C-alpha cells in the first residue's frame, strides 16, 4: 500500500532484487535512527512522512473509525518517538513500526467489536486515486471496497490483524510472523480463518 516509501522493504514476493535492496535499506534505517539519537529533529519528521500512511491505515483497519485512527496514529508516533532511540535493527524499521502499531491498537481497543462506520466514504479525506481507472470503474471499486471494509469489521481482531497485514499491506508470511511475534504456522492459520470469516460474511460462495 505504501509504494512511495523509500525506507520500506521490497515487495514480499518480489524476490530477485531483495539482496541488493536490503543492505541499502538497513543502512538508511540505521542512519535515520542514528540521526534521531543525535537529536536531529528532521530525522523524526522524515520517519513520520515515511510511515504515517502505514500507521494510519493499519490503525484505521483495526479500529474502524477515522477519528479514532487519527488518535491512535498520534499515540503510536508518540510511543515511537519515546522508543525509537532503542531500536536495534533486529528487524526492519517497517516491521518494528507495524509491531508498535498493532500492539498499541490491541492495548487500546482490546477485543471489542468495531463500529460499522464505513471506511471508504470520502468525508473530506483524500483517497489515493488511481488515475488509470475511469470514474465508473472507481465507483464500482469504491462500492466493493466499502462492502469489504464493513465486512472486515465483523472479523475477530486476531484474524483481522493477520488478514490486513497480508492482503492490504502485502506482507509476506514471515514478515507477519515477525510483526505479530508468532510462529509462521499461526500466521497461516489466522489468515485462513480471517478470510473464511470474511467469505461467510460476504456470502462469497463455496458453502462448507
Amino acid at each position: 500500500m505504501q509504494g512511495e516509501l523509500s525506507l520500506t522493504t521490497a515487495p514480499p514476493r518480489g524476490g530477485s532484487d531483495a539482496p541488493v535492496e536490503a543492505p541499502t535499506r538497513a543502512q538508511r534505517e540505521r542512519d535515520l535512527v542514528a540521526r534521531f539519537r543525535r537529536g536531529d529533529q528532521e530525522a523524526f519528521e522524515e520517519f513520520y512522512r515515511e510511515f504515517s500512511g502505514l500507521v494510519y491505515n493499519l490503525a484505521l483497519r483495526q479500529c474502524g473509525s477515522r477519528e479514532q485512527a487519527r488518535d491512535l496514529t498520534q499515540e503510536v508516533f508518540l510511543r515511537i518517538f519515546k522508543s525509537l532511540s532503542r531500536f536495534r535493527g533486529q528487524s526492519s524499521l517497517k516491521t518494528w513500526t507495524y509491531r508498535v502499531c498493532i500492539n498499541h491498537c490491541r492495548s487500546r481497543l482490546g477485543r471489542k467489536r468495531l463500529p460499522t462506520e464505513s471506511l471508504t466514504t470520502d468525508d473530506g479525506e483524500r483517497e489515493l486515486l488511481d488515475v488509470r481507472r475511469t470514474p465508473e470503474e472507481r465507483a464500482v471499486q469504491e462500492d466493493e471496497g466499502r462492502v469489504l471494509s464493513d465486512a472486515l469489521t465483523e472479523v475477530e481482531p486476531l484474524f483481522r490483524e493477520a488478514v490486513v497485514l497480508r492482503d492490504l499491506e502485502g506482507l509476506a508470511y514471515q514478515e507477519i510472523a515477525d510483526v505479530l511475534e508468532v510462529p509462521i504456522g499461526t500466521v497461516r492459520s489466522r489468515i485462513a480463518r480471517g478470510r473464511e470469516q470474511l467469505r461467510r460474511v460476504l456470502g462469497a460462495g463455496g458453502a462448507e
Partner: protein
Amino acid sequence: MTVSSHPATEELSAYIDEELERRAVEDLDAHLASCLECRHRLEGLRRVVAGLQRIESVAPPPALEEMVLGQLALRPPRTLAERLAARRRGSRRVRSYVGTIFAVVLALVIISLLFTQAVQRRQGAAVEAGEVVPPADSVEWRAGVDRQRIGERLFARTAGGWIEVGVGEPQRVLGANDPERAELLRTLPGLEALAGAGAEGESQTPTRIVLEWRGESVALELSPLAESRR
C-alpha cells in the same frame, strides 16, 4: 488427496498465497481437478482476497502531521490551519494547567488547615477561641486571666502562677541548682519575662511556672531579677 478428504481452509488459503510446499500443491491440484465443491470454496476465497487487495489506502488527514509533530514540539505550525490547531491544543494545555494549579492550591489549603488544627490542638484551641479552659488537673484556675505566648507555647496566668495551657500537675520541680533548669532557661529565655509579666512591682516574689519539658510536666520558681543576677 481424494475427493473424500477435502483440504482444510488453511491449505486453500496458503495455496492462494503460494505458501504451500510443491508436493502439497500437486496433491491439492489433483484434488481440485476432481472436486467441484473445493473449487467453489477456493473461488470464494480468491474473490475475498482479490477484493481486499483492491481496497485503497487512505491518506492520513493533512492536519495529522502537525498534530503529531506539534505534539512533540518538533516544529512550529506553518499554515493557518496548523496555527489554529496549535492554538486549540494550546488552550487545552492552558485548561489542563489551570486544573493542575487549582488542584495544587486546594491540596495546600487542606494541608495548611490540617496543620493549623494540629497546632491548635496542641496549644489548646479553646483558649485561643477566648474561653479560658483550665488544664485537666490544674491546681487552681482563675477565669479571665492573662495569657502569654513564648514561641509556640501558650501560658495562662493563674493564682498559682503561669501554667502552660494543656499541661497538667507538675511531676517534678526543677530546683535552683538543677542543671536542667539552666538548660530550660536557655531554651526558653522568654520565661524570665513571663515571670515578671503582670507582677506589678512584686518582681522580687518568685513566680511559679508549670510547663512541659522533655515530655513531662515540670515546675520551677522564677524571679527575673534573681535569674539575671545569677
